[in-house]
């Protein structure tokens, strides 16, 4: 046990483990079943949504419930441009359009603080969903759309690349001046403002950047569903799940966010296939239990258990 605790082996494990995981994931299409690949793409989707949501909402503490809006924008870009432009272009435009919409939304909404911001973003998401629905019914004549299908392996690799980009940007951001400023805003927006930070610019830029990845993920995932309509594309679950997953895993660290997204996606998959009748019930119980007993998420498991131990010891 002593040797495992030495700083050298911890450091090397930290270096080696992600590389091993990446190699495994990168070669998965060579040996894994199609079912596994589809499940993994699903996990990737939630990792992208969770990590990119936390890029902005984690440090700033502005809880956004608009992820579904930006994810859905990507989906619709894919549905509309899928058979016009090459796949990578479609994905990029999906991200870009999300980014631009977020810039516009940011300019109009980031003056709102706390609960008002959260409600606004949720309302915005719903507004976009209903507007698209209205447009489709009154202008296009049909509610749904077909999306050009793309090979599952391409979907898998596209999602893997987006995950890597998202994690890279999230990590870089967290160590940058911009990330530092955003943390200051989360701690005390007034103080950050008075210390020379252009708080509105920082909030709007990071918010918009974070939505870029949601849009790209939407554009890729749409090709897998082949049929979409506004209630699929702008499903409010895509707004709530990233928040839950980040809290579940531990919002303060990117690793925690990834673990949260992975654990909840896999858990939902397992429960749905093994216990279809008790799926929602058991899922809910587990969520409630983790949030009640592990306020810092799965990442804080060790620390929380230690404090339990100490408490029982004192008694």
């Amino acid at each position, binding site marked *: 046990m002593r040797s495992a605790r030495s700083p050298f082996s911890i450091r090397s494990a930290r270096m080696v483990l992600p590389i091993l995981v990446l190699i495994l994931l990168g070669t998965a299409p060579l040996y894994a079943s199609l079912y596994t690949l589809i499940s993994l793409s699903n996990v990737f989707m939630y990792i992208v949504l969770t990590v990119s949501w936390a890029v902005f909402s984690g440090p700033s503490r502005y809880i956004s419930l608009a992820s579904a809006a930006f994810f859905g924008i990507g989906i619709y870009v894919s549905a509309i441009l899928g058979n016009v432009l090459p796949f990578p272009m479609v994905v990029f435009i999906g991200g870009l359009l999300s980014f631009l919409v977020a810039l516009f939304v940011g300019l109009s909404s980031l003056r709102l603080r706390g609960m008002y911001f959260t409600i606004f973003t949720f309302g915005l998401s719903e507004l976009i969903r209903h507007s698209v629905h209205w447009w489709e019914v009154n202008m296009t004549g049909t509610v749904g759309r077909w999306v050009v299908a793309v090979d599952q392996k391409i979907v898998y690799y596209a999602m893997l690349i987006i995950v890597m980009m998202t994690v890279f940007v999230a990590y870089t951001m967290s160590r940058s*001046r911009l990330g*530092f*400023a955003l*943390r*200051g805003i989360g*701690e*005390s927006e*007034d*103080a*950050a*403002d*008075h*210390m*020379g*930070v*252009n*708080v509105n610019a920082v909030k709007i830029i990071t918010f918009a950047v974070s939505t870029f990845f949601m849009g790209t993920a939407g554009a890729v995932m749409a090709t897998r569903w082949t049929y979409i309509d506004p209630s699929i594309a702008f499903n409010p679950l895509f707004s709530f799940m990233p928040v839950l997953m980040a809290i579940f895993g531990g919002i303060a660290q990117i690793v925690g966010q990834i673990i949260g997204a992975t654990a909840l996606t896999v858990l939902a998959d397992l429960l749905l296939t093994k216990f279809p009748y008790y799926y929602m019930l058991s899922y809910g119980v587990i969520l409630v239990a983790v949030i009640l007993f592990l306020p810092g998420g799965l990442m804080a498991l060790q620390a929380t258990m230690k404090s339990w131990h100490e408490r029982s010891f004192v008694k």
Partner: protein
Amino acid sequence: MPILEGKSVVKYFGGLVAAAYVDFHVDQGEIVGLIGPNGAGKTTLFDLISGSLAPTSGSIEFKGEDITGLKPHEICRRGIARTFQLVKLFGNMTVLENVLFGSLFGESITSARSAAEKASSELLEFVGLSGMNRVLAKELSLANQKRLEIARAMATKAELLLLDEVMAGLNPAEVDKAVDLVKEIRHKGITVFMIEHVMKAIMGISDRIMVLHFGTKIAEGTPDEIARDKKVIEVYLGLEAHAES
């Protein structure tokens, strides 16, 4: 030569007047005290100077440049930094990070991180918080939190500091130390404009004192003149202080 000058500054909150045609000025290198009863508009005046609030009318100039209605971050970068009546630190950041924040964002010229870190450590030593770099700000005592706020404000390379009740809630020994700190800050060539209720302290260190009452300036002068001013004694200092002096 005034470094800060306000001309007939007015601020209304609905029908309530928080600043009524207030003229004020702070000279380079001075320590100016701002006193008055609760609700007199002292913090509002600081909010107007630092950009938290925009005046209804009137103008504020800093180093001869009009800064009326600028945003707080713009005013900070021009060289005015402040502390808050109710401490507003970055509680979950370390002491060093708090000061680093001011240094990285508040200076008009962006400095390298290593230089900023060195300057921040020195500032922490200056305010008497050496050895606490890695402590979380929220874990400090109130007296130390106030010192940290001063260090963070100074880290922006401010030429003018607005100190809002940095001595409130401190015990007498801590007040004495805070008075020494303000004197040393002036020694560094930084101009100080401070709100204070601790009379002994403010009378002791101010070169000049301004008294506000219901948003109006009712007196201005040296501490001695203020202590003898009939109107000030009536509305603020009270008979006790009169008897003492």
